[in-house]
């Protein structure tokens, strides 16, 4: 091989290498560009990006892992769609996100800008969204309390009987839909929404983080739900029974058209836990068949703290309460006292049996041990 051929070979190799490197850079940058067109990752890619909040004494982390973010349900939403007040780099502290904003993602059925506003409105009409009820900052749940921008769920249940079912579906989709990224995301969204994201046990635990907290519930004159886990409803929930009744089964039953976002106070006549609708709620498909009014009367959970709370309220506010309010509170107090008495009776039955379970089998065990001792002795002496 001559000197000239050798130079030509090196030159060809150089240009091929450059092409491969440029192609890689192009592909890499194009995928990054789709997620971060505003270049927010310039700063937010650093894992140490955080700030101390003196008011709450907590640390806020502003690091965003782009690879993970891209796999989440909001992965195709640009940062400024939720943070519209951020217009420059570096920016001032961003305002809290309003989930009712319109983002620039198109809702495919109407081709309009997508928004969670209908859900936010329903939430605001419900017990958890009525700000005037929440006199304390730590009590009111916000969207982010339940929704943490989750990663899309894989195929589950009967759909996932083949391990590669999701990949096979994607291939079928791509037969007609040209855009890979869009098609994959659409399929992920569809698959993820075929099953509820929250398991029944997770729903109970999520609600219990606040509602089983006696101190927090006392602030809002509510009884706690700590003893829900002593009920038969919970036993069915913990074993993943299809009809295991969790919190939403009664407080927002989907089969009766309610959603978790507009849970109403039980005093609201439209609430599924209101006495007027309870027989319908308890008698929904898969639950109790034709329940009577006496069956649905009373509370299912509660530790009885409401009696003392009502007593305090009546005493402290007796000068400012109207006659009607006082009468209502007294009626509520009477009802709660009856409920408390019922719980005490059940507690007494349990205590009686607990003592019996220790005493009776304990005495029996002692008796049988004595019998064993004497029988062994007799056999030894009797030689048989």
């Amino acid at each position, binding site marked *: 091989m001559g000197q000239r051929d050798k130079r030509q070979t090196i030159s060809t190799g150089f240009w091929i290498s450059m092409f491969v490197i440029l192609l890689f850079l192009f592909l890499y940058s194009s995928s990054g560009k789709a997620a971060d067109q505003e270049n927010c990752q310039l700063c937010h890619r650093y894992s140490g990006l955080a700030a101390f909040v003196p008011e709450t004494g907590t640390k806020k982390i502003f690091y965003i892992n782009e690879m993970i973010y891209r796999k989440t349900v909001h992965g195709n939403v640009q940062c400024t769609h939720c943070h519209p007040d951020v217009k420059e780099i570096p920016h001032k502290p961003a305002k809290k996100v309003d989930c009712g904003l319109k983002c620039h993602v198109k809702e495919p059925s109407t081709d309009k800008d997508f928004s969670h506003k209908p859900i936010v409105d329903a939430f605001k009409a419900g017990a958890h969204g009525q700000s005037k009820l929440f006199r304390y900052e730590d009590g009111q749940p916000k969207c982010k309390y339940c929704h943490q921008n989750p990663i899309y769920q894989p195929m589950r249940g009967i759909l996932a009987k083949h391990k590669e079912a999701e990949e096979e579906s994607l291939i079928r989709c791509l037969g007609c839909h040209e855009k890979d990224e869009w098609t994959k995301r659409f399929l992920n969204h569809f698959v993820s929404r075929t099953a509820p994201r929250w398991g029944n046990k997770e729903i109970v635990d999520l609600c219990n983080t606040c509602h089983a907290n006696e101190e927090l519930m006392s602030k809002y004159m509510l009884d706690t739900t700590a003893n829900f886990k002593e009920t*038969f409803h919970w*036993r*069915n929930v*913990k*074993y*993943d*029974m*299809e009809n295991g009744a969790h919190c939403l089964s009664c407080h927002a039953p989907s089969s009766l058209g309610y959603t978790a976002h507009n849970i109403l106070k039980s005093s609201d006549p439209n609430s599924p836990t209101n006495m007027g609708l309870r027989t319908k709620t*308890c*008698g929904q498909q898969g639950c*109790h*068949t*034709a*329940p*009577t009014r*006496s*069956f*649905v*009367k*009373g509370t*299912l959970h509660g530790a009885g703290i409401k009696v003392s709370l009502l007593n305090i309220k009546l005493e402290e506010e007796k000068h400012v309460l109207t006659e009607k309010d006082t009468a209502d509170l007294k009626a509520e107090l009477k009802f709660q006292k009856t409920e408390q008495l*019922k719980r005490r*009776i*059940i507690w007494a*039955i*349990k205590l009686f*049996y*607990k003592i*019996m*379970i220790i005493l*009776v*089998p304990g005495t*029996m*065990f002692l*008796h*049988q041990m*004595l*019998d*064993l*001792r*004497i*029988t*062994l002795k007799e*056999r030894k002496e009797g030689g048989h």
Partner: protein
Amino acid sequence: MKKWGRRAEDQEWFVRLNRTEVWQHNIIWITFTLLVLTGMMSLIPTTWVVAMFGRYTAPVYRWRRYLHFIFAIGLFIGCVWHIAYLAFTDDGRQVFKDILLKPIDFIQMKENVLYMLGMRPEKPKFDRYDYKEKLEYLFGCIGTVVIFITGTIMTLAPLFPKFVVEVAATFHLMEATLASFAISIWHFYAVHLKPGKFPQDTSWIDGKMTMHHLKEEHPVYYEKIAKERGMINRDKRMDSPSPTSDDKNINKTYVSSAAEGIDIKERQSGQEEDL
């Protein structure tokens, strides 16, 4: 009829439980055990159940409810049969009469405890049923009634006030727990673990008990039987290792009688007439 367990050919034995009683006992203990297993599944920690059944936990738990109900019906049938047997048959009425707690049982209980503690030289002489069996039967009856009433309320829950259902559920769970512990300790020791009985008292299979055990555990009743049949003199030879040919013939009579479910008293009266 095949002889079970460690029962030797040369041992004498008699019908402790007739065929009806054996079947009743078997229906009741099998359904009781299955009810405990299916019932306790809802009480034991979830992790244990998941460890046992893995991904089949949910279907198993769903079937648990149906099976619990089916076994409850089985137990109910067994109990109704037993009550009818006690009420409408001579044997049953005799069992009922013999198994009722009497003042002497409390005296014997005290005497037996003193004996076991070494504070009395001899143990009391028990009749057909000792105080242990009578107490077990009595508490078993009370427990079954409680379980049935509360279980029925729980099954028909929507027809009752919620508080009544909650009270019923509490009684049901606690009574079942108490009964399970009591049976495990009391009955299991008496018929399985007790020296001389281990690994099991085979009377639950064929209803028969050796005369040797009867003499040891129910001497008063043994004496009645032996006296009625003129066995007292022969009884002196019972400990002999090789029985005579006459004894073997008597054993055969007992075996065949037991297999046919003939009442022991009828046999006794028949023998007396022959004599």
